[in-house]
């Protein structure tokens, strides 16, 4: 199969060919960027919260929220929740990974040294039993001792607990290359309160992942009670449904005049990524529609050309071309057009990405995605032309002898 006849035949259809190339190029540019955004979004959804997600049930009560509950209610609530069959442990926390609500603070690596501050650090506080309940895995050091859980209200300027647990990644960024155990971070105005790191966990994800707060920039403090917190129950994943209903009932039995909400923790994680999932589905739909429209275009156009060239095909067959030569001709023609479009499209994809980066918060297109869109369209083109080309190859040589 030599290309020159293909090219010279296409010269008769300059405008049409230009339009198809333009269409393929546009589709390729958009598809490449869409696939890139899908890949990027998927990569941000693969976080390890550091918790046993599937074993946790989260319960909120409105009186915890507005701070009218005192430690008495919290203690009796906890006792009732621990008494539910199937609950192996329970704790009160201010917030959990991927739950959106959070307390952020600044910490100091050296007291009084402004250059040592780290801003937008998420502060987790939790009551006894937290390590076991959440299923946090210690990489080194130890968990909290019972006497380390003290009264602390961050918003009233109280002195914080004297010990903390931090995630490995954050410890590494605070004290690069050093053993974080025994290191001190400082909280409060001017960094006046030292807090010693006694344990490092493999992972503890932020309540919110965003450019300001990063993904694992947080510490966990032991406290006696939490105002505005939520109860976390640990249970067997299979029992969650029953525990959720029982927890609601137990808390309303203690005080019916409050709102109680119990949910599986996995639902909270699902909800956090809901937007991302809908973006992915939307883009998948867009890519599918674009590919479908491009394929329809190729099918339609090649069918027309096959019809138009029936006589020429007959002549070629009559002078000795085999069926597969005709087949090859149309595939080659299609490959030529589509690959030119795909090449232009790859360049367009880079430009489109630059524009998107300027107007929206999108990262730079990694060049590895460029061949993806181009190859996708070339394969699609070859598949679309299969039908028309096959029909062309069936044109009998005798057509050549008829008038048009």
């Amino acid at each position, binding site marked *: 199969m030599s290309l020159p006849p293909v090219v010279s035949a296409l010269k008769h259809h300059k*405008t049409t060919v230009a339009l198809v190339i333009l269409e393929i190029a*546009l589709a390729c540019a*958009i598809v490449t960027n869409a696939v890139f955004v899908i890949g990027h979004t998927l990569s941000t959804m693969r976080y390890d919260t550091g918790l046993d997600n599937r074993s946790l049930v989260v319960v909120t009560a409105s009186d915890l929220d507005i701070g009218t509950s005192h430690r008495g209610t919290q203690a009796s609530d906890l006792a009732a929740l621990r008494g539910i069959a199937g609950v192996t442990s329970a704790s009160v926390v201010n917030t959990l990974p991927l739950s959106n609500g959070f307390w952020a603070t600044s910490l100091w690596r050296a007291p009084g040294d402004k250059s040592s501050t780290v801003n937008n650090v998420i502060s987790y506080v939790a009551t006894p039993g937290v390590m076991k309940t959440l299923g946090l895995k210690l990489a080194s050091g130890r968990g909290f001792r019972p006497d380390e859980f003290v009264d602390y209200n961050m918003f009233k300027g109280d002195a914080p607990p004297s010990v903390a647990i931090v995630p490995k990644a954050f410890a590494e960024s605070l004290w690069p290359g050093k053993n974080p155990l025994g290191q001190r971070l400082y909280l409060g105005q001017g960094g006046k309160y030292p807090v010693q790191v006694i344990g490092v966990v493999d992972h503890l994800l932020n309540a919110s992942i965003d450019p300001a707060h990063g993904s694992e920039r947080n510490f966990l403090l032991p406290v006696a009670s939490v105002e505005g917190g939520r109860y976390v129950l640990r249970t067997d994943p299979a029992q969650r449904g029953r525990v959720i209903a029982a927890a609601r009932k137990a808390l309303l039995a203690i005080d019916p*005049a409050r*709102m109680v909400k119990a949910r599986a923790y996995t639902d909270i994680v699902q909800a956090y990524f809901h937007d991302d999932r809908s973006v992915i589905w*939307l883009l998948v739909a867009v890519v599918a*529609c*674009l590919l479908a429209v491009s394929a329809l275009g190729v*099918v339609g156009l090649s*069918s027309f050309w096959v019809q138009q060239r029936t006589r020429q095909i007959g002549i070629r067959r009559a002078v000795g071309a085999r069926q597969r030569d005709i087949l090859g001709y149309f595939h080659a023609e299609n490959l030529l057009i589509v690959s030119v479009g795909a090449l232009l499209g790859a360049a367009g994809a880079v430009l489109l990405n630059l524009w998107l980066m300027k107007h929206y918060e999108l990262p730079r297109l990694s060049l590895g995605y460029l061949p993806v869109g181009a190859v996708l369209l070339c394969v699609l083109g070859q598949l679309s032309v299969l039908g028309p080309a096959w029909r062309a190859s069936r044109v009998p040589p005798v057509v050549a002898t008829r008038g048009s």
Partner: protein
Amino acid sequence: MLRYYLQLAWRSLRRHPVMSGLMVLAIGLGIGASMTMLTVLHVMDADPLPGRSAQLFRPYLNPLPRSYTNNGLGPDPSINLTWPDAMALLQAGKGAQQAAMAGTRALVMPGGNRRPFRAQGRMTTRGFFAMFGLHFVDGASWSSADGSSAAQVVVISQGLARRVFGSNQVVGRSLHLDSHDYRVVGVVRDWAPRPMFYVDDSAQRYKGADDYFVPLSTAVSLGLRVSGNQSGWGKDGIGPKSATMSWLQFWVQLDTPVQVAAYRRFLHNYAAQQKAAGRFERSPEKAARLYSLMGWLAARHIVPGDVSMQAGLAMAFLLVCLVNIVALLLAKFLRRAGEISVRRALGARRRDIFAQFCIESAAVGVLGGALGLLLAELGLWSVRQRPDDYAHLAQMDVGMLGLTIAAAVVASLCAGVLPAWRAARVAPALQLKAL
């Protein structure tokens, strides 16, 4: 002639049903996707208070030090006003009406063993009701004496009144919010402008409504929590009355262009005074501005980035569909060179041929538009399933319906122009010979 062309178009479409179907499908998909997103943009960009919005203005004052930076992370504190600035504007009273406000929320305790529920409210000043045109069904706004004495009074919505008391004639009754008691002084008809133009940037603009209103002074003295951005930056600390913490929104009603011009001068002078006093660091031109309501919404970029990106994506998709159709129509029309030649030889002028093919393209557009309408309804249904606050508003109105059909016809005509023009230039003699 039109009828004849329509007949020709119909016959031509039927001669290649698959091909015609593909073209209709392509137009339908493109129009369906783009109209879905245009409808979403249309409801998001709507005028929240038709007939009243032209008289409402939002003063902007920037007290931030020049050195202030938040590295582009987090909200811009200058969007909201500080207590001293809001009070200065309020006391000057230069507008026909004005009010300072901020969002709040509370747990409504209906009493007895009835379950409490959450409600969204507003801490504001008296002018709010008259300025925004809220309608009282019982009682009235609190008095200025109530406002200055920080009395525990509340104006509630009809919906909240019914939910708590089972009636809307409840002036004088007591309402328990969080841990405080308030005396109801007025009941207003439910009021939920879309978008909620007067709220803080962090609030939802397309969902929810204010169910209760308490005097700003009362809210501050009780220390009610503010839902919204509260950004402090200076040494004055971060109390609600601090001169270096912004958290209040402020709106003013100005009825005539003269009043608007006078208010601009007033704001400019105020900023100049503050600069002279050393509080503002920026020049009055930069530190003081007055936005119209729609201008403010435009400056706030209330349409989220992902929605405008999806709209762009939908338009790009329509473009791809159109380019596709241009190519298909071109191939189709030029294949009919023989037919064109016969018509030309029998006396049809070029413009007749052109008109004939344009009508055929428009016919594809009408069919595609009908399909697009169905697909847009489907698309809007899927938008309504999203969890976003604007989702429930995504409905097509008559205007958008007409626009959908018109867009499909115009789009297919645009797509048909080049092919029809090429078809009209077919030379009759050459083609007749080949027949």
